[in-house]
């Protein structure tokens, strides 16, 4: 398959698969098999692009011109490649998990669920392969709209209220700030193309660059920078597979991916380093890192705690980008992958506990390690990866992020990263530790794991975190090429 065909195919496969899934709605087994098939085919298609991109090629497709000098363009570069691999790869695991979960939990309207899920993945891949800011913005908004029916899946009053916050924050930040920043950039630079080294150098004064960066960063509501983070905990009313793939991987990663992409290809890290425009953003990121962790500690609901943990972890990536040096970019982009594997595992575990034991509150989870040893084992591994301890993948990204802080001589950032690791230990470890060190709860009878379709994916993703520690090579190769 030629690279250009592969780009189109990767974006269209889930999109065209969605109606097929809807048509097969009545025949559940066939529908679910087709979903997995599409996911595998999509991942395989994305993989065919890897050799060319690693070798330095930047395959692109020009579609239609929408505004003068501004077309729908898809172009694969290392950062997008990385994000596409993560999103499409984890989609396979999530689809399998979703069958187990949705059936085990007796969810209604499963066809609608799988339909919008496929559309959302398509949008995420489109965002990953965007060749300019306009294309990225289009995919970003499609992702918001297509995940709304997933977030409000239960159609309850609670879902309605959560949906309002979700749409309200995501749409108003993207229309209010991001679009404004884009149009201003287009006015200043005459283009919105992603160019290594940026398009703004020498075209705008320092304070305009600073204002634009903040507009972009807050406009990307999906990155959940405080104070625009409230939508993420709200989105947790969705069924767990949605929280797992979309609100730990696809949606939120599209947010931070957008920020990294803007920093590298719209501003250029040199410009940010020279003007010091990233300074304010580093403080916002630090506040979000610590604030997210602190709030996470107060939450007893497992999914809510994970949501705030995600908010905090996303800002690691924003921090890496805002530090504006090569280590920071490498650390930020590696963290996209590392955090994805860790956090999706944690959400899978939370869902598995819900399916098997119908428990959602952490205080009820003492001793469940004896009932669900595999699930809680995976939970422990993933927690360690999020904290950033070897031998797990999360250690690498944190390593590079701290290096970036030292290089920039930004000691507040370094201190924040270290303090945050301690906070991570404080809010994640008790869950796993209490699960194993307390006796099994009264009335439990032996092992009580979730269905196999739920357990296998979470073991797989936990294993992924482990493998990424020992073989970070290919990932690092991609990350090193970003911006070249």
């Amino acid at each position, binding site marked *: 398959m030629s690279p250009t065909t592969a780009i189109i195919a990767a974006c269209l496969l889930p999109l065209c698969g969605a109606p097929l899934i809807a048509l097969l709605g009545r025949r559940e087994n066939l529908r679910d098999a087709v979903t997995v098939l599409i996911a595998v085919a999509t991942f395989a298609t994305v993989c065919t692009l890897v050799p060319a991109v690693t070798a330095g090629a930047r395959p692109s497709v020009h579609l239609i011109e929408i*505004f003068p000098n501004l077309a729908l363009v898809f172009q694969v570069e290392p950062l997008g490649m990385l994000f596409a691999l993560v999103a499409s790869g984890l989609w396979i695991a999530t689809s399998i998990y979703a069958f187990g979960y949705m059936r085990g939990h007796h969810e209604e309207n499963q066809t609608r669920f799988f339909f919008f899920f496929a559309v959302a993945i398509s949008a995420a891949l489109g965002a990953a392969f965007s060749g300019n800011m306009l294309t990225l913005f289009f995919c970003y908004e499609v992702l918001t709209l297509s995940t709304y029916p997933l977030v409000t899946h239960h*159609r309850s009053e609670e879902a309605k209220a959560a949906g309002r916050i979700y749409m309200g924050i995501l749409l108003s930040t993207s*229309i209010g700030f991001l679009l404004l920043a884009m149009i201003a950039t287009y006015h200043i630079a005459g283009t919105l193309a992603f160019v290594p080294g940026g398009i703004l150098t020498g075209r705008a004064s320092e304070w305009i660059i600073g204002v634009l960066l903040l507009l972009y960063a807050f406009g990307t509501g999906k990155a959940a920078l405080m104070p625009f983070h409230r939508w993420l905990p709200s989105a947790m009313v969705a069924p767990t597979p949605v929280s797992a793939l979309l609100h730990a991987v696809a949606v939120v990663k599209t947010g931070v991916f957008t920020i990294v992409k803007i920093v590298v290809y719209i501003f250029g890290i040199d410009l940010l380093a020279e003007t010091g425009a990233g300074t304010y953003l580093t403080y916002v990121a630090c506040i979000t890192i610590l604030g997210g962790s602190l709030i996470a500690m107060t939450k007893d609901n497992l999914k809510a705690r994970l949501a705030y943990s995600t908010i905090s972890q996303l800002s690691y990536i924003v921090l890496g980008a805002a530090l504006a040096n090569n280590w920071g970019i490498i650390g930020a982009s590696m963290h996209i992958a590392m955090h994805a594997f860790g956090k999706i595992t944690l959400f899978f575990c939370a869902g598995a506990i819900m399916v098997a034991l119908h428990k959602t509150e952490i205080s009820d989870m003492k001793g469940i390690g004896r009932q669900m040893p595999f699930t809680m084992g995976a939970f422990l591994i993933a927690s360690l990866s999020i904290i950033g301890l070897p031998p797990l993948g999360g250690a690498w990204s944190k390593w590079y992020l701290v290096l970036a802080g030292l290089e920039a001589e930004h000691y507040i950032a370094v201190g924040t990263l270290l303090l945050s690791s301690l906070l991570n230990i404080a809010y994640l470890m008790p869950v796993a530790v209490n699960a194993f060190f307390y006796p099994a709860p009264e009335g439990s009878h032996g092992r009580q794991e979730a269905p196999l379709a739920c357990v296998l994916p979470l073991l797989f993703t936990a294993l992924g975190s482990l493998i990424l520690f020992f073989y970070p090579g290919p990932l690092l190769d991609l990350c090193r090429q970003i911006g070249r």
Partner: protein
Amino acid sequence: MIAAHLPILQIILPLLAAPICVLIRPQKFVWPFVLIVSWATLGLAAMMLNQVLLSGPISYALGGWEAPWGIEYRVDLLNAFVILLVALIGAVVLTYAPESVKREIDGDRQPYFYAAFLLCLTGLLGICITGDAFNVFVFLEISSLSTYGLISLGRDRRALTAAYNYLILGTIGATFILIGIGLMYMMTGTLNMADLASRLQGVNHTRTIQVAFAFLSVGLTLKLALFPLHIWLPNAYTYAPSVVTAFIAATATKVSVYVFLRFVFTIFGADFAFGTMHIDYLLLPLALAGIFVASAVAIYQSNLKRLLAYSSVAQIGYIMLGISFGTITGLTAGIVHLFNHALMKGALFLAVGSIFLRINSVQLDDLSGLGKRLPVTSFAFVLAGLGLIGVPLTVGFISKWYLLLAAIEAGWWPVAVLVLISSLMALVYIWRFVETAYFRPVPDDAPPVSEAPLLMQIPMWLLIALAIGLGVQTSLTAGIAQRAALWLLAGAP
């Protein structure tokens, strides 16, 4: 042969067809006849635009009397574009009409309805095509009088007061326009637009011409429903039959905007209007106030048609805001939104018509669970509504992009921010429908209903397809709008 007489055919065809409607027996043949006429009109409009694109403006001397003595029909890029829009909406709405008309209008009045509809179409097309200032007034009266009649056909008795209200205010507007034209004639002795444009150069420092400009501006802003002269609009849209609302919402105000552009830019010229008369000082605040006030009022409406009517007032604000910048990008934004808003609002009102046909109400409270009862129509409404918010991949986004770009180019950042805030207000009023339709349960006593017939679905989806397709393929709309804007500012008549 046909090619040489396209401009007059465009008017004669619907004009002559209108009285024939009343004569046709049996009545069931009326609609097929009207349908053929409307699509033929659209075909002519498309041919004319094509001809203008290929070989430049067309000038047609009526009855062989050369301008400036005779009446000249003059078709250039701008009005060919608006004519295509009007003819398109006319054809689409008439295709949609029969079921809805049977439901909302008494049997023996239906031929009169179709006749009035064609007359209204004729009037709107005529306003656009003519190159004669007095002729504009004549066609304006033809379209207005038929519109008053069409509105009064609504089932609700309040349609009568709405029509009467519009009659009074519309007549005031038309009179103002006539006074303006009269004053110009007094000073120049000509009514031909091209001739007027060149002769005004010498006299436009006089108070008479300045007064003429003021009368014309006020009269036209009343007809195009710029806040605060919009008060005739909400009731008229709410109580008119669904088909009429869809048609006039998508065309009538747009044509008035066209006349405004024609008078301000090609007859008076941008230098006079913006430099001497400072019309932007008036338009910009009023447009912004209209956007905010009308959007805010729309949020609190309980009647879906009235909600959309107030939304129209706000959207007209966007069009006028673009025009008030007086720059190429600003005018592009105004003209492109004129077209885009017509598509979106047309689609929305057609969806509302389908809802009324099946549910027999357009009160939001009666639409609980509509997403389950009429899934296709509800989805159509949501799609068109997303366009109104300005979501990417819809035409609404294209309009908003140009509008924001124009504001930033002019260095008016606060205006750009206000426009963005206002699109969030559109989000709120569209979301009221979404939450009613998808989150409230279907009432227990709700009878089962089926979707509207295919003949109503197809026109509605056609407009939605255009509203999305033209949001991606922008060369037709934004491309033409930009050329028209360039040409308007160049000042050539």
